[in-house]
């Protein structure tokens, strides 16, 4: 279970990115975090594993307050938190297998990681995960040889290799096409369900969030302005998060775009024939 208490972050420039955010994510819950650009979504999830240092509040994972830890303890605790990134953030010049094994870095001594001599159990687990995300035959390819969707699968496998108790997911589908986005979201939610793994997913695509999330939290200017189920995310709630806009119109636009894309695909297929 993850508990945020009065979490705040003020950047050196004086911008308050987070103001007194309190949230509880129980075991097994997939929580979507939505909000306009600059609302503090990215800052929030980075404050949890302290890639960004919070300026106030508590981040309690299990029974450890992560905010108070020294460097060595923080590294040990980071192993419990898997992170998946917007543009995959794989080490492009390493192989898929090396990328997945890098999820074990916090567990192995330097010489093992340097010589790529990982314990057999880690290697077995890495193969298992690659099989789970459907990339078994790509294990020895370089990461930059894969497509976007495949790379994000490697990102997922790397995060899972840590044996995490929590997943932080930062805009997992922002660089992917609609179909691949849905595949990735489905994979993520399935994996979380299999393991009872809680996850916080930053996502700017509202329909996608509603389709896949069990709970949605809306952030605006660093504050929680909505917290509820996808069904409760009404016109009024969206206005509270994003400001006034014709949401039904936008949703219709979204359907239209999906239709247009399907149409374009059919025409491309016809041309290819």
């Amino acid at each position: 279970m993850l508990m945020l208490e009065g979490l705040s972050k003020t950047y050196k420039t004086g911008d308050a990115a987070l103001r007194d955010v309190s949230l509880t994510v129980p075991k097994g819950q997939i929580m979507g975090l939505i909000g306009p650009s600059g609302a503090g979504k990215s800052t929030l999830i980075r404050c949890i594993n302290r890639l960004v240092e919070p300026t106030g509040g508590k981040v309690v994972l299990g029974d450890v307050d992560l905010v108070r830890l020294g460097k060595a303890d923080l590294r040990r605790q980071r192993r419990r938190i898997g992170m998946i990134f917007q543009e995959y953030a794989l080490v492009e010049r390493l192989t898929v297998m090396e990328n997945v094994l890098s999820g074990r870095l916090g567990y192995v001594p330097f010489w093992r990681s340097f010589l790529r001599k990982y314990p057999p159990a880690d290697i077995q687990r890495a193969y298992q995960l690659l099989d789970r995300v459907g990339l078994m035959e790509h294990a020895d390819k370089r990461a930059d040889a894969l497509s976007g969707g495949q790379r994000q699968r490697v990102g997922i496998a790397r995060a899972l290799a840590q044996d995490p108790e929590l997943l932080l997911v930062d805009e997992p589908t922002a660089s992917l096409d609609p179909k691949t986005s849905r595949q990735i979201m489905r994979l993520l939610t399935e994996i979380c369900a299999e393991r009872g793994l809680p996850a916080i997913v930053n996502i700017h695509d509202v329909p996608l969030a509603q389709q896949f999330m069990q709970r949605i939290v809306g952030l605006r200017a660093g504050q929680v302005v909505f917290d509820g189920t996808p069904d409760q995310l009404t016109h009024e709630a969206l206005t509270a998060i994003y400001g006034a806009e014709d949401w039904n119109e936008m949703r219709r636009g979204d359907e239209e775009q999906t239709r247009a894309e399907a149409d374009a695909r059919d025409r491309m297929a016809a041309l290819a024939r």
Partner: protein
Amino acid sequence: MTEITHYSQVWSYRTPRGRLLLWGGWVALVALFVWCWQLMTKDTIWFFVADAPRQAADIGGRMVPPRWSYMDELWGPLWDTINIATLGTLGGVIMAVPVAFLAARNTTPSALILQPVALFIIVASRSINSLIWALLLVAIIGPGLLAGIVAIALRSIGFIGKLLYEAIEETDAKQIEAIEATGASRAQVLSYGIVPQIMPTFWGITVFRWDINIRESTILGLVGAGGIGLKLQASLNTLAWSQVSVILLLILATVVLSEWVSARMRHAII
């Protein structure tokens, strides 16, 4: 939409002030050129200049045909020259890598002390030419190959260090962040997050510097630091022009070969 009804047809790339400055700049440049020309020609003895083509033809005439039999004496010094360049590059790399990591903004352990020190080492090494390093070292450790190797190594630190620390600073922060997020230690972040990203640049720089060092080490013999330059100096001193031409041709062939090797290797890496 604003309520303008007539849009201007006039648009100029520079402001009037900019145009004036540009003209002023050109005038100053021409004036500088004229002044430098006068300075340069003041002490020129025009008789020698007029004589130059004849002198060049004379030396050129003495250079051909090259005395090919002299080649047998050159293989040893040539091998020395290649060794000076190769070992010097190796030594330079070994010293430059830690300096580069200390100098790079994103990897330096102390921006207050170590970074300026590392940057100073880089500048100091770059500001002194290999030939001058060799002169100093011949005086310190005596003439011979070792002085040449150390001279090349010291000169290479700055070159390799500078290009490498720039490569380190240009690494993709997202990949490093992702490795940090796994709970990796500092050393692991370096070896998984940064090293793979700079590897192609590192090999490119090293091979490029080796190629430069081959050229530089051919002249180190002039100051007694070993290699083919020693032979060149001896031949020049005895006015043995047909030997000089053999040496110059050999140097040319070596440099062409080393450039070809370096180009091929860099192509294979990148």
